[in-house]
């Protein structure tokens, strides 16, 4: 098992009620697997998870990416800055 930090921004923070959580995950878990775990914990994510953007250690991350120990993972909607 390894520990990761998960951050939620904008609408994702509103939907989960969380800014930042810590999680223990299996060593071989990919981003796709982490999404399933999060949907279980936050059922409101289910309908929108495919449009959620995921970053890992400040880079965009996709379903097939393995997760290193102590990764900082963030979930957020499409950006709207500027």
């Amino acid at each position, binding site marked *: 098992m390894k520990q990761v930090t998960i*951050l939620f*921004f*904008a*609408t994702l923070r*509103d939907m989960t009620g969380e800014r930042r959580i810590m999680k223990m995950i299996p060593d071989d878990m990919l981003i796709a697997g982490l999404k399933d775990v999060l949907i279980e914990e936050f059922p409101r994510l289910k309908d929108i998870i495919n*449009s959620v*953007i995921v*970053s890992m250690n*400040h*880079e*965009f991350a*996709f379903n097939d990416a393995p997760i290193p120990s102590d990764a900082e993972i*963030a979930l*957020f*909607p*499409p*950006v*709207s*800055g*500027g």
Partner: protein
Amino acid sequence: MQNQTICKIVESEIDLDKLLEELTQNTTGAVVMFTGLVRGITERKNPHETIQLEYEAYQPMAEKMMQRVADEIRLKWSNIETIAIIQRIGRLNPGKPTVIIACSAAHRDTGVFDAARYGIDRLKEIVPVWKMEIGPEGDAWIEGDYIPKSND
């Protein structure tokens, strides 16, 4: 003088005259600055009045992605000298500048206009900043529509 890249998230006003100095090297003859501002009145698509916008950033990733935008600019327009990408966050009233993309070069025909244009377009795709509209009937997040690809 070396070409500089300034990428930052700030919470206070952006001083354009100071920024222009930072963009100026001894070979610089042309600077293009794009400024985005909070519109009080929006007429396109969904016409509405804005009371305030609240900007939030995922700061370390945002600064990294701004640096990526700057790197992309340098790959496309190799004559660009200094690049500044600055996003202001926090609650902002209509009329306030929220973002600056500025590029300097020796001459105006070196892509300096296109580079600034590309910079703001890319910032709105890959830099993790979000804005919330503060309205009389409550607050609402404004969502973009760009889904990053594996080469972003």
